[in-house]
C-alpha cells in the first residue's frame, strides 16, 4: 500500500507561451479531505485534468494510488465529478449510472445493488427513470456525484461539487465527503466556497499562478492565527506592552468609557489562561476574553492576495 494516495512532483503545463501550472508538488494521504484553493485562473482545473489524464503535462510526474499518471487500472479505483459537467442528457439517471458502471468494469450484479443504493443516497430514487434533460441543475449535480461514487473509489476528485446546490444539497455533499473519509477514501476537493472547505477539509493547498503557495493543516492554521479581544477595566499602555511576550499586533482602544478594548494576535490558544492570570495579577478587571479565529476567507486573502491571480 502506498504511503500517499496522491503524490505530485513538479507538475507543469504550458499552453504555448502561457504557463497554466508552473510546478505543482503536493501529497495527499489516505482518509484525508484535501482542499485545493486558489483564485480564478490559478491552474486548479488544469491540475486536476492532468491528474486524471485528460491533458498531458509538459513536465513533472505524479502517482495516483501508487500508479503513474494515466494508468488505466488505477482509474477503476478513482472517482471524478468534473466542473460544469454535462452528461448524455437523453439517458435516465438509472441508465446513465448503468453505462458509467459498465465503463468502470463493474459486474451487473454489483451494479444492480449499487445503483439503487446511490440513487437513494443522493435523493433521486423517485426520478430514476426520468431523462436527465428534465433535471434541474441541482439534480444533475447529485447524479454526477452518484456517478463519481459508483465504484467505491479510494480517491475522489470533486471539482466545485456544491456549485448549483441549495443548502440541503450542500449539506448532502458535506455528509458524503465525511462518509468517504470514514471509509478510508481520500477526497481532493476544488471549491470556491471557503466556508464549505473550512468545514470539510483536513488540509488545504493555496495555489497561485500555478504553484503551491502554502499547504496548511486547517486546524493548526486556524489556531496559529487566533486573534484575541479583551474587554477590561484598568488597562494601561504599560500593562498592554507586557503582553508582547505572548502575542503581537497589540492594540489598545482607550476611549470607550469605563471599559477598554485590547486586541492582539496569539500563536497558540494555550496563551489565553496565562494572559488572563497576567492581567488579574496587574489589577486589571477582566470582563471578557474572546479568542476569534481568522476565517479561511481572511486567510485566503492574506495568502493569495486580493489581485485575484488574473
Amino acid at each position: 500500500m502506498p504511503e500517499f494516495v496522491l503524490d505530485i512532483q513538479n507538475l507543469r503545463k504550458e499552453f504555448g507561451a502561457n504557463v497554466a501550472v508552473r510546478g505543482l508538488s503536493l501529497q495527499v494521504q489516505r482518509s484525508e479531505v484535501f482542499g485545493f484553493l486558489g483564485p480564478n485562473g490559478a491552474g486548479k482545473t488544469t491540475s486536476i485534468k492532468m491528474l486524471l489524464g485528460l491533458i498531458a503535462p509538459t513536465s513533472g510526474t505524479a502517482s495516483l494510488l501508487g500508479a503513474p499518471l494515466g494508468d488505466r487500472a488505477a482509474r477503476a479505483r478513482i472517482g471524478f465529478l468534473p466542473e460544469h459537467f454535462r452528461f448524455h442528457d437523453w439517458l435516465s439517471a438509472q441508465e446513465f449510472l448503468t453505462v458509467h458502471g459498465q465503463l468502470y468494469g463493474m459486474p451487473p450484479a454489483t451494479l444492480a445493488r449499487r445503483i439503487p443504493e446511490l440513487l437513494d443516497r443522493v435523493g433521486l430514487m423517485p426520478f430514476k427513470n426520468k431523462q436527465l434533460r428534465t433535471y434541474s441543475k441541482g439534480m444533475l449535480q447529485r447524479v454526477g456525484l452518484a456517478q463519481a461514487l459508483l465504484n467505491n473509489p479510494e480517491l475522489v476528485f470533486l471539482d466545485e461539487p456544491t456549485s448549483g446546490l441549495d443548502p440541503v444539497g450542500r449539506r448532502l455533499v458535506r455528509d458524503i465527503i465525511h462518509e468517504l473519509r470514514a471509509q478510508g477514501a481520500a477526497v481532493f476537493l476544488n471549491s470556491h466556497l471557503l466556508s464549505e472547505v473550512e468545514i470539510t477539509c483536513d488540509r488545504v493547498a493555496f495555489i497561485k499562478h500555478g504553484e503551491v503557495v502554502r499547504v496548511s493543516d486547517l486546524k493548526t492554521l486556524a489556531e496559529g492565527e487566533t486573534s484575541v479581544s479583551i474587554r477590561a477595566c484598568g488597562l494601561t499602555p504599560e500593562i498592554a506592552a507586557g503582553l508582547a511576550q505572548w502575542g503581537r499586533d497589540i492594540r489598545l482602544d482607550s476611549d470607550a468609557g469605563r471599559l477598554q478594548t485590547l486586541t492582539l494576535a496569539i500563536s497558540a490558544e494555550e496563551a489565553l489562561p496565562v494572559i488572563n492570570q497576567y492581567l488579574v495579577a496587574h489589577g486589571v478587571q477582566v470582563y471578557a476574553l474572546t479568542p476569534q479565529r481568522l476565517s479561511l476567507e481572511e486567510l485566503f486573502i492574506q495568502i493569495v492576495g486580493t489581485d485575484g491571480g488574473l
Partner: protein
Amino acid sequence: MATFIIMRLTFREAVRRKIVLAALLLGLAFLVFYSLGFYFIITNMQGMPAGAASVLARTEAYNFLFMAGMYAVTFLSIVMAALISADTLAGEIGTGTIQTLVTKPVRRAEIVLGKWLGFGGLLALYLMLMAGGITASVWLQCHYLADNWLAGIGLIYLESLIIMTFTLMCSSMLSTLATGGVVFGLYGLAFIGGWVEQFGSFVTTFGRPGGTQGLEAAHAAVNVGIVSSLIFPVEVMWKRAAYEMTTPLLRSVGFSPFSAPSVPSLLMIVYAAVYLVVTLVVAVRRFSQRDL
C-alpha cells in the same frame, strides 16, 4: 468491452434523439415516392410493341430507373454519414461530456472505435432500408434485378463509411462546424473531379475535337479526376458501383449517365479500403493524444 458499451450508447443516442425515427419515416416516404414514380413510368411503357428489341429496351429502362434511385440513395447516405458523426467527438469535447467517459478505466481508442462501430451499424441499417427498398421495389414491380447489385450496394456502403470515418477524424481535432465544412468541401472537390474526369474520358474515347492539343487537355482532365479520387476516394466508389450495376450493353459501350468510360480499377477500391483504415487510425491517434 468498453468498445461495445460505447457502440450501444451510440445506437441508443440515435434512437433517443429521434435520428432513427426521422430516417425511417423519411426513408419510407422516399421509397413510396420512388415506387409510385417507377409504377407510372412502367405503366406508360406497356404500350411498347413486343419482341426482342422491346425486352432490351425495357431492361435498359428498368436499369436506368434503378440507377437513378441508387444515385439518390448514395447522396442521401453520404449526407447521413457526415451528419451523424460530425458532432460526436467535437460536441462532446466542447460540452465536457467526454470527461467522465475518458476518465473511466478505458482506452480512448475504445471510445473512438465504439462510436465508429455504432455509426457503421446505423449506416448499414440505413442503406439496407434505402438501397434494399429500391432493389425490392424494382424487383416486385417488374422482376428486374440489376447485375452485381449486392456488390454495388457494398461499394456505396464503403463510400459512406469513408465519409463517416473522415468526418470522425476531423471531429477529433476540429469544431463541429469546421468538420462539416472540411468534409463537404472535400466531397465537392471529389464530385467535381469526377465530372471533369468523365468529360475527359468521354473525349478521349469518343471524340477528337481539338486535335492533339485537345487530346492532351482531355488526358489532363482525366488526371484531375484521378487526383481528386486519391485525395478523397468517395465519388469514385459510386462510379465503380454504377459500372458494376449497369446493364451489360452499357457496360460494353463503356458509357452511361451514371458512370465514366474510364472505369475505376479494383486497385482504386483497395486504395479506398486502405484510406478508410488509415483515416480511422489517425482519428484514434489524434483523439488519444489531444488535451481534453
